[in-house]
């Protein structure tokens, strides 16, 4: 495992191009495009204000930089650095901006979600979509880039509009049976749209591409409901994480629950392995070596840690949330399927230091990783069944079915890993600190001796 040197970035804006060749980062109001393998700066663009959002187009030729305060969007071309494009939303303001899947249209959501403006970079034409809904996830493109589903709210009722991304033709517009739609997501095969209600009511609706209601699922009434929803990459399973600390998995044939995963505070009676991170305190240095150690830099303050396999039963530390606050920190808030749909990683908010890995084939718990501090971010490798996670300290943790490992990120002055993302080839990881970023190159099997 090799680590690159540390570069500057701001706002955690750092994205790899879809073709995997370039890495774009934002430093205040500059956009820096580097080559992923050599990390040489290929292009440097200057925007008019601090960049709030940055996104690659699907063909990896253009980068969109949105500045929400100024209401501006600037688009830069990689091939022609002189090419420029600026979209000014004017007095209406800007709240979010994104590319369309063909890489030639930009969808801007105005302030107060008044409307969604579709700018065409081909013809400079403008289209408007009215009454978009301001919710957790109100807009989603299908994976093949053909359709856009948008949640709308008119007359205190929720609707969904399905557009064809080719020419923004409104294909379907139907009312949903939700009280207050919180989010929608296309299945990876693009044929089913999962729609879920706000946390006040547990309701998940499944609509077919042509607007027919296929099924409704509601696990219980009255208590706080759905927190997060995730499709498996094979479109076979829909995992629903809710405030009752359980994950329910529906199958795509009958849309009924096939299994329920619970997150008890005491793990017992399971064949899973529990990995516990144990920190090794550094040895107290003698006087002679003190100077030497200080000159070596931050090794004095970095504690080594490793994983130990715990014997069952194991107690996971629990933090009870305040009962009177809204959106309590309880329940399954993050769900992630591995790329082969074999594993599902979950995090329960009141056990923030633990990550649970479930085997979807056997429908049982595979492993539990207990860290020393709260897990901030975890992501699956896009190619292999490997999970990378970080907890805000200077270490990177990796889990694979073969075992678990903790790696110290070697950087001067300490590098607190706040979030991470995999490169689309699965060969490298991008680690983001507060104002820094670092790349970690995984050893491929040919390089291993």
């Amino acid at each position, binding site marked *: 495992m090799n680590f690159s040197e540390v570069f500057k970035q701001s706002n955690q804006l750092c994205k790899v191009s879809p073709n995997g060749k370039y890495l774009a980062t934002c430093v205040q109001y500059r956009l820096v495009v580097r080559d992923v393998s050599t990390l040489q700066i290929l292009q440097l663009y200057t925007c008019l204000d601090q960049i709030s959002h940055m996104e690659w187009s699907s063909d990896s030729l253009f980068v969109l930089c949105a500045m929400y305060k100024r209401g501006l969007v600037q688009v830069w071309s990689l091939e022609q650095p002189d090419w420029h494009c600026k979209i000014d939303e004017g007095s209406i303001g800007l709240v979010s901006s994104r590319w369309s899947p063909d890489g030639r249209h930009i969808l801007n959501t105005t302030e107060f979600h008044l409307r969604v403006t579709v700018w065409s*970079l081909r013809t400079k034409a403008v289209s408007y979509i009215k009454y978009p809904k301001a919710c957790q996830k109100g807009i989603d493109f299908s994976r093949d880039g053909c359709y856009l589903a948008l949640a709308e709210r008119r007359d205190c009722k929720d609707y969904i509009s399905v557009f064809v991304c080719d020419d923004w033709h409104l294909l379907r517009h139907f009312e949903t049976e939700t009280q207050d739609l919180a989010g929608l997501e296309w299945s990876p095969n693009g044929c089913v749209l999962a729609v879920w209600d706000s946390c006040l009511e547990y309701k998940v609706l499944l609509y077919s591409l042509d607007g027919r209601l296929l099924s409704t699922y509601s696990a219980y009434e009255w208590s706080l409901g759905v927190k997060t929803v995730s499709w498996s990459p094979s479109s076979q399973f829909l995992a629903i994480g809710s405030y009752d600390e359980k994950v329910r998995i529906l199958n795509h044939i009958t849309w009924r629950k096939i299994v329920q995963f619970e997150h008890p505070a005491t793990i017992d009676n399971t064949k899973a392995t529990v990995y516990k991170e144990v920190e090794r305190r550094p040895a107290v240095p003698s006087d002679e070596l003190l100077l030497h150690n200080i000159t070596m830099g931050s090794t004095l303050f970095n504690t080594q840690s490793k994983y130990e396999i715990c014997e069952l039963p194991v107690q996971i530390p629990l933090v009870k949330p305040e009962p009177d606050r809204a959106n309590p920190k309880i329940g399954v808030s993050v769900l992630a399927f591995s790329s082969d749909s074999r594993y599902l990683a979950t995090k329960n908010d009141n056990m923030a230091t633990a990550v649970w890995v479930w085997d979807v084939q056997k429908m049982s718990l595979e492993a539990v990783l207990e860290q020393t501090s709260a897990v901030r971010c975890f992501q699956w490798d896009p190619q292999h069944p490997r999970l990378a996670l970080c907890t805000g300290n200077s270490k990177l943790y990796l889990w694979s079915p073969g075992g678990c490992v903790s790696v110290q990120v070697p950087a001067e002055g300490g590098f607190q890993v706040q979030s991470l993302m995999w490169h689309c080839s699965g060969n490298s990881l991008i680690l983001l600190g507060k104002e820094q970023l670092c790349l970690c190159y995984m050893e491929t099997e040919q390089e291993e001796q």
Partner: protein
Amino acid sequence: MPEVPLVKDVRRSSVECRTPPLRQFSLPSLLLHRSPHTLRAFCTEQNVQECLSHINQEVSSLGLPPVWSELDSSSELNNVSVLNCMYDLIQLHHRSLRTLENMEVEQIKLSSNVDYLKLTTGHLKEQLELSKRENTGLLERERQLQLKVKSLQNCLKNEKEEVQKLQSIISSRASQYNHDMKRKEREFNKLKERLNQLLADKKERKQAIDVLNNMGRADGKRSLWKTEKTKAKHEGEMYKTLLCDYDSRQRELVLENAELKKVLHQMKKEIAATLRLRKLSLKGEKPDLGGTQAASEEEEEEMFDSSKESVELNCVHAREKLTNSIRLQWRKLKSHVERLDSQVFLTQAGESTNGDAVPRETHEEEMERLKLEIQQCKDFIQTQQQLLQQQLSSPCDEDAATLLNDGYMLQEKVRLRDEWKILEEQRKIFEKERKNFTEAAIRLSHERKIFEEDRATWLKHQFLNETKVSSLLAPEKLIDCHLDAASSTPDVSLTSPSVADLQHKLSLIPENRSTKPKRQSEDTNDLCGNDHLQDKQWTDSEDLSSHSLTQEKNCTI
């Protein structure tokens, strides 16, 4: 009448007098045993004394004054004492009668009392029974009521918990609503402020886009107008996607179904086979052959049916038949296994465990082996973890790593330096050689030039010598003749082609500087030689000339 009661009393007294000892008078005792009519026989004239003494005894024993004392000399009875005695006796008798009456009365009273008491006890017992029953009934009711109370308490607890849960739900919902309300209110306020700002704002910043040049479509195609046709096309595409998805799903399900059916068939066959084996083995033990026969018939039927079933794959009936037959077979197998288990248990309990100890032992051995394996695997995993950790932590061990890196770097540097030296030397050598070659080439060209010049002069001399022979010919022809003479063929007359050839040859000769002397001599020899082979000679020379041409060319280069 006094006689009658006397008789009665005498009777009674005789009865009573049975008990006192009558030692001397056995006869009177005998008499007394008889009926009272023989009373008079007690005292006869013979035994008066004895009777007197006896009566005296009796009277004295009764506590009365004696009737007769021995001191009296007369043997006659004292009438007064006798009368007194009789009177006393009568009094005693009366008294005893009275007491008897009283006692009878008492007895009657007592018996009536006893009866009454018996009655009352009977009543009381009944009452007791009743009350006991009532008591048990009451206890039972109390128990039931207590149970009810407990269950009601439980219900109450549950309800309380439910209420608490609902209260917490309500409170969380309320907090959620409040939070949302506040959020919406904040947004509303922001909107109002914005509206005010916009109304107050004189210059309105319009939306605008500024693109350097329009981009083409990502896929290079031309965009189409929005028409009904495109709408229909979009609809069509959407349905196509859906249909493809359904198609693929259906295919998968059909495959899965086929596999499952295969598995079921296989299971059925295997179960049937094992059952038949078991039945054959158990036939000697079990007397119910009728059942097995029927079962085997059923199996045959089912085997026959399986062929039909494979044809009617989608028929609901076939599916049901299959599942039912499997269930039946499975139940039979289960019952067989249970029977076997019970048999095994009986034999284990009854016989010595010799035959069974072996499997048990093997079981235990297996268990031990497996446990050992598990332990080994665990240890292995632990060591792997450690090694993995070590391997990945060691690069972070900076001291050793940097030293190692430096060492490797130095090695690399030294190696590269050596290689560079070697390459430099080789380059120098190559340079030298190249220089030599060029010098040699230059020298060679010089020499060639000189040589050509020499040749030319030599030839010139030759020609000059020959011109004396044929001075009539034109200088060219002279040259031709020279050549002919040089060739020294007897045929002096030259045919035109040969002349042309000669000319060709001659014209080539001045360029023909690089021909080696050896070849030259060969050529002349050839020329001298044969005139049949003239053409060949010319061709040879032409070849030579072409060769020399190329050589010349090389030289010039």
